[in-house]
């Protein structure tokens, strides 16, 4: 079993830029499966990026199937992406985002509403995904993790960050 640690803000390792996945061996597969199982086990978790568990490689997993978010337009089920690149983007959507690495705090973030992403699947095969709404938001949030960017760096308004139980 792979060792891991869920990194939390202000851990500087969350600011590192992750390396491309070059080999699709058993270790890479094990990491992907670990990401999927952590996402599944964390209540209300819709996406996870490898650097969040201290593996600085460009692998993300997303699943909005059980989400209650109102901006869900498309649901592709479980998505595994290695070396994801956004190749087309349009529109603007503002969503209140939360992050496993910034527990309890939430803030409004502006993202592209519709995106097309090119990536490699779990076995290294190239594919593209067109998506929109909340699923597109989650993918952009995860890709940011690969570049060492947190949603805190993208708040629509700097004073818009608070805990769930505190009123604005």
């Amino acid at each position, binding site marked *: 079993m792979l060792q891991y640690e869920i990194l939390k803000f202000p851990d500087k390792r969350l600011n590192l830029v992750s390396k491309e996945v070059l080999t699709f061996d058993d270790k890479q597969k094990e990491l992907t499966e670990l990401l999927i199982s952590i996402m599944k086990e*964390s209540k*209300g*978790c*819709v*996406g*996870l990026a490898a650097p969040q568990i201290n593996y600085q490689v460009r692998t993300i997993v*997303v699943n909005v199937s059980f*989400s*209650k*978010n109102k901006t869900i337009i498309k649901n592709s089920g479980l998505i595994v992406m290695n070396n994801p690149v956004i190749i087309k983007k349009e529109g603007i959507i503002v969503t*209140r*985002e*939360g*992050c*496993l690495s910034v*527990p309890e705090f*939430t803030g409004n973030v502006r993202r592209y509403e519709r995106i097309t992403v090119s990536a490699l699947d779990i076995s290294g095969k190239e594919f593209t995904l067109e998506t929109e709404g909340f699923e597109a938001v*989650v993918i952009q*949030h*995860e890709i940011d993790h690969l570049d060492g960017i947190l949603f805190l760096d993208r708040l629509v308004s700097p004073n818009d960050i608070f805990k*769930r*139980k*505190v*009123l604005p």
Partner: protein
Amino acid sequence: MRYYLLTAFGKDRPGIVKEVSEILYNFNLNIDDSSMIRLNNEFTMMLIVEDSKNIDIEKVKKEFNILEKKSNLNIALKEVEKEDIPNEDNPIYDIVAYGKDKVGIIYNISKLLAKNNINIINLFTNKEKDFYSVLIRIEVDKNFKIQSLNKELERLRNDLDLKILISEVIKEEEM
């Protein structure tokens, strides 16, 4: 670790927060949670402070007594238990009520909430001339039927001639 609740208020002017927090800083007391707000022209502060150095609190109290007299503030300091908030996963709702101001709006809404054993987490009110609005964030038990509260709020709407809205605060998903 010890925790204290500090309350301080006085006629508003620049420097109140500085004077209070300076004493805390000098004794190495950390502000854990706080609400500081101007109500009319009174500045009010409520703080939970954390003492990790096991300091002599009587010395702190003495400093605040001096400040109280010098700065014309009302200050109180009391040791409190620090407990984790129970039932973090309970559903949270916002109740918004607004309309013409009258005596008893808060009383009648809170009476209804208390009767249903509902806990208030936060409450904010606003008044502008005759227009009054209140925002109440409540926490209900997982098994509580919110429809029953809706029915009772409906009655209150008519009795108080207010708009009263209730909506669930959805917990943001993590990614």
